[in-house]
């Protein structure tokens, strides 16, 4: 697994603080709200210039919703989203959002439904230019569209064709060209390769990497594929049930996971090399319902190392060691140093990560 080196320290281009989305559950027409699906429940992170932050987690953990909340495609319940020195974008009306949409764009998961089947590719890519009045009509816009197509490795001639004439990988390139049209600083990539064949995945990932080098883009890369995340991301955040449970540099996090959930998640990655195979950690039970998350740490009913404080309070996302890794787990809280369960201590002495 090759890991990209993290970029130099600079003020973040995107700062998300305590972002929440609680979907109300209503029954009938006039009845009251019965409860909330806490799809995203207080997510905070920062994204530096030229950095790729991976957001991983299993289905339904809220990673996709997080991406959409940032762009206000889903209305956030509360929280704070700032692009550089912008005002809080989670709270301003859509009309004032418009200038910021030039700076943050999105690539979608499904290359088939993310392109309008009745629009020629040129119009699809040129649309953002029209909305933001970046290239005047006619010649100038066509030229820019051709440029963009070539930038993502397609023929300029593709502009006249319709989406159904392209393969999945080509369509995803069109989606990338559309996102690049306004020259954004940040791209939120929502599982951009999970719908593609493995051979095509590599091409698209290489394209994303090249574009990052050329244009200094920052990516929020949402995926459940740890292999892709490990290859592409400078930092990784792991989500479980609407919260980030662990965030840290890609290398550190993937080679030495701290949170029991991250460990379990990593142990599920299939490997070909026999000596690298990890001991599979089988979690008990199912993901709890986000309507009624467990008390205390959301993960405690399934955690192999749970102990006294786990069902009492939710652990803070606290920095570890040099502060680059942060973990939300009582096992790493110095306060409980003396009460650690035996199972955890023994796994610490013989690293659980690489089991020969």
């Amino acid at each position, binding site marked *: 697994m090759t890991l990209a080196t993290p970029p130099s320290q600079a003020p973040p281009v995107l700062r998300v603080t305590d972002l929440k989305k609680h979907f109300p559950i209503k029954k009938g027409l006039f009845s009251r709200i019965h409860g909330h699906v806490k799809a995203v429940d207080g997510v905070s992170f920062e994204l530096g210039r030229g950095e790729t932050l991976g957001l991983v987690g299993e289905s339904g953990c809220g990673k996709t919703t997080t991406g959409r909340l940032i762009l206000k495609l889903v209305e956030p319940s509360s929280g704070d989203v700032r692009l550089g020195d912008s005002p809080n974008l989670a709270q301003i009306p859509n009309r004032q959002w418009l200038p910021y949409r030039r700076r943050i764009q999105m690539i979608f998961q499904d290359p088939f439904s993310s392109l309008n089947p009745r629009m020629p590719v040129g119009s699809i890519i*040129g649309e953002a230019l029209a909305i933001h009045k970046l290239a005047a009509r006619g010649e100038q816009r066509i030229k820019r569209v051709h440029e963009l197509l070539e930038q993502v490795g397609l023929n300029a001639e593709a502009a006249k064709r319709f989406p159904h004439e392209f393969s999945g990988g080509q369509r995803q390139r069109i989606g990338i060209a559309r996102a690049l049209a306004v020259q954004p600083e940040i791209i939120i990539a929502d599982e951009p390769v999970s719908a593609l064949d493995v051979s095509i995945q590599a091409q698209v990932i290489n394209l994303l990497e090249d574009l990052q080098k050329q244009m200094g883009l920052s990516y929020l890369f949402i995926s459940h594929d740890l292999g892709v995340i490990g290859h592409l991301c400078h930092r990784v955040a792991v989500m479980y049930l609407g919260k980030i449970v662990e965030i840290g540099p890609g290398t550190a996090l993937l080679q030495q996971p701290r949170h029991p959930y991250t460990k379990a998640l990593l142990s599920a990655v299939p490997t070909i090399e026999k000596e690298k195979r990890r001991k599979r950690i089988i979690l008990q039970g199912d993901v709890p319902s986000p309507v009624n998350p467990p008390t205390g740490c959301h993960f405690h009913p399934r955690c192999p190392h749970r102990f006294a404080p786990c069902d009492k309070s939710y652990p803070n996302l606290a920095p570890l060691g040099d502060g680059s890794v942060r973990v939300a787990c009582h096992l790493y809280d110095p306060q409980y140093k003396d009460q650690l369960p035996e199972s955890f201590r023994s796994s610490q002495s013989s690293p659980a990560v690489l089991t020969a």
Partner: protein
Amino acid sequence: MSFFRLDPITRKRIRRFRQQRIGFYALILLSLMTIASLFSNFIANNRAIAVRYEGEWYFPTFKFHPSSTFKQEDPYGDSEADYRLLAKSAEGTGNWVLMPPIQFNPYENDFDFYDDPPPHPPDKRHLLGTDDKGRDVFARLLYGLRISMLFSLMLVLLGTIIGVAVGSAQGYFAGWFDLLSQRVIEIWSTLPLLYVVVLLGTMFRPTFFMLLFILLLFQWYSITYYMRTELYREKSREYVQAARSMGASHFRIIFRHLLPNAIVPIVTFTPFAVVGGIFLLTALDYLGYGLPAPTPSWGQLIDQALESSNRGKLWLSLSPFCAITTTLVLVTLIGEGIREAFDPKPWSQYR
């Protein structure tokens, strides 16, 4: 934008419609009939198309000329010139008159030629005979076609525009607007059409546009059901999310993204809606609550034919019957052709 090209799905559908020969030919035939009926004034009229008289040109279709213009005897003063007479008298004088193929207009009572009272059976003078007021049946059928077609097309067009607008707004904005408007439509759709038309017909004497308006009240909502669900489905697709993330306005999303994807199948409903409109107008005319009296209409002809004094006078009943049947069959064939062209399974057929 110069990337414009008719999108491939639509082009494929048009090609497939043309391959369904019957529907395509029916469309051509009906279009010809409709276009011909638009030029009814040149086909069935007592006014000449062109007159050359004493070195002057006259086009009476467009302008009233008193009989004195052509030095005709006129017992009443300034009544209109009789062009049929003029045509006869012009022979061999160097003047000439170009008469329409049918030399009667649909309002004209042709009493003087016959000794017995109308209706008269078909003869050389009146190809399909005359009705009980001595009016030429063919002329009335032709003008009746024009009125029914225009009425029905306007009804469908306006109804579709209103229905698409309301249905799209419901589907797109959803929430409270959808909830309330959907309830209003549900209540509104329980109003019985015939009672309301009869009631209003007894209060006012309905004109063409008033009747159009009344029927529109019962026409517009049927399309909202379709548009509403279609927009609900389309707007959840990722390309709409993509447009929103770019900052596209509601207007742009609705008109550039959603409608082009949702509106085309409406074409499949249209022919059947047109048939329904023609049928409805004919039925209302038959009942006497349609367009006011002298207006040439098919329903009124059928009403005449069914009067007891007109029993056995088949030209009165058969001619509107054939006209209605032909129109309805043609429109249905077109509708069937369009439906098949839109069918995603290319070889399925109704047998």
